């Protein structure tokens, strides 16, 4: 679904940048915590769980906004393969932003761990205790984290390509609102 707007709406842009920070922090905390035995391990795990649920909620809000407001059209001269890549990457981002927290929650449930976020809030298990389920979900959570990071690198490279090489306005659709000295070019 696209719209005649040339930019994403302000709430969409705000959520994009807020979630960019959250998701990047999440991925770094994730790979960091599983590779340390230092005391910060416990703090990192706590943040990881709480932030994960936070991202899930934000992603659902963002999906709703996206369905309501749509997205600006891509420039007409973009090649079909690039267009396809852009659409697929957006689906992948939504699937990962919503799927990764659910996989995490599910694997904790299957492992019979109590799920406590923000230090006090107990979430119910969403799956029965099962070694098989835990293994499946844990592996998915683990490997998809690297897929997620690779996708972000690709996204950053692509958007910089739009900004620096093609200069086609795609970056500006999501850019923060900077006070404009001159009106939009016609």
């Amino acid at each position, binding site marked *: 679904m696209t719209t005649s707007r*040339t930019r994403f709406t302000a709430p969409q842009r705000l959520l994009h940048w807020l979630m960019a920070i959250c998701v990047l922090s999440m991925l770094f905390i994730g790979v960091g915590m599983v590779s*340390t035995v230092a005391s910060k391990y*416990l703090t990192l795990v706590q943040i990881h769980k709480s932030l994960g649920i936070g991202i899930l909620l934000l992603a659902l809000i963002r999906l709703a906004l996206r369905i309501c407001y749509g997205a600006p059209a891509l420039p007409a001269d973009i090649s079909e393969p690039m267009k396809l890549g852009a659409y697929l990457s957006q689906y992948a981002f939504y699937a990962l932003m919503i799927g990764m927290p659910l996989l995490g929650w599910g694997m904790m449930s299957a492992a019979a761990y*109590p799920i406590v976020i923000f230090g006090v809030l107990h979430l119910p298990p969403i799956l029965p205790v099962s*070694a*098989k389920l835990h293994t499946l979900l844990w592996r998915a959570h683990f490997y998809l984290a690297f897929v997620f990071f690779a996708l972000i690198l690709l996204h950053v490279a692509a958007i910089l390509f739009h900004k620096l090489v093609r200069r086609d306005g795609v970056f500006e659709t999501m850019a923060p609102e900077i006070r404009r000295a001159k009106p939009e070019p016609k």
Partner: protein
Amino acid sequence: MAQSPPPPRGFPLGSLAIIAAVVAVAATAFAYTAGWLSPHRLTPKKLVASLAPAEGPALGHRRNHTKGICFSGTFDANGNGSALSKAQVFIRGQYPVIGRFNLASPNLNAVDAMVRVRGLGIQITQSDHQEWRSAMIDAPIFPVSTPQGFYELQMASGSKDPDAMKKFIGAHQEFLSFLGWAKSAPWTGSYAEQRYNSLDSFVFTDQSGAKHSIRWSLVPAAQTVPISPDELTKRGPDFLEKEITERVAAAPQRWSLVVTVANPGDPTADPNKAWPADRQTVEVGTLTVQQIEAEQDGPCRDINFDPTVLPNGIGTSDDPFPAVRSAAYSRSFNSRTAEESHYPRTTTGGKQ
């Protein structure tokens, strides 16, 4: 964005270099965080691998304290603990328990009479579903003072260098006090006759918000009967599991849960240092073990006795070990649950 792209101005080398640099910096930072650029970092993977016996780990089983047996029972709180912690588990009442008696050895086929340290894992569930998990051992102090020391102990004891242990002890004098206990403490013929200690310190928070540094122990009601290791050897390699099964079938076995409160200045960060014997102790309730079940299909099988799974009112202290144990137990849990085919259940459908 209606403007048409500017005409191509030759190969945009500078821009592409910027893009490549941004991606490379981000990827490097990620690799660094993941520890891929720091081969000397003590990771859970390295620590757990250091525990493995020479022939490799017992697939499908816990990576340490590998041989064990499940129990279920209750914890009856007497209400005394509420003065120290607001945790529901200390409010007078009965709470369900699942636990596991075990030997502190990574060897699945360890001979009971050869393993000096015995352990007990426990999970007490509050009515609000918060849990208190703990893994304790019968030694009164931990062998080493620091996680790095623990790793070095594993490396030294698995080393082919005949002087490895000597060198280790040279660098970790605190190990001598553990050895002193190991050489002199009496052996017993039953899991039921052992006292199990948290060793690590934790922090209780009471209703007023005041914090208390504490450790806890399960003190057996059964009388301790010292038996020589030679005598125990004659009882067969698995006498502990047979004995506890028969004993509990005949009568429930009890332990009193005793909390020891530190004085200001007591070493809370070093489980190798016992607190002076005159410290305040509070008996907070009774553990009753009512049923023994083999681990293979038993209720403790899928539980990770992670000592940082704690209800509100109990928290970790400046003791670095619970975090290390949590990280390592998680690694062990992920490995063993993925190897279920090496340790198949005999009944279909998991417990719980």
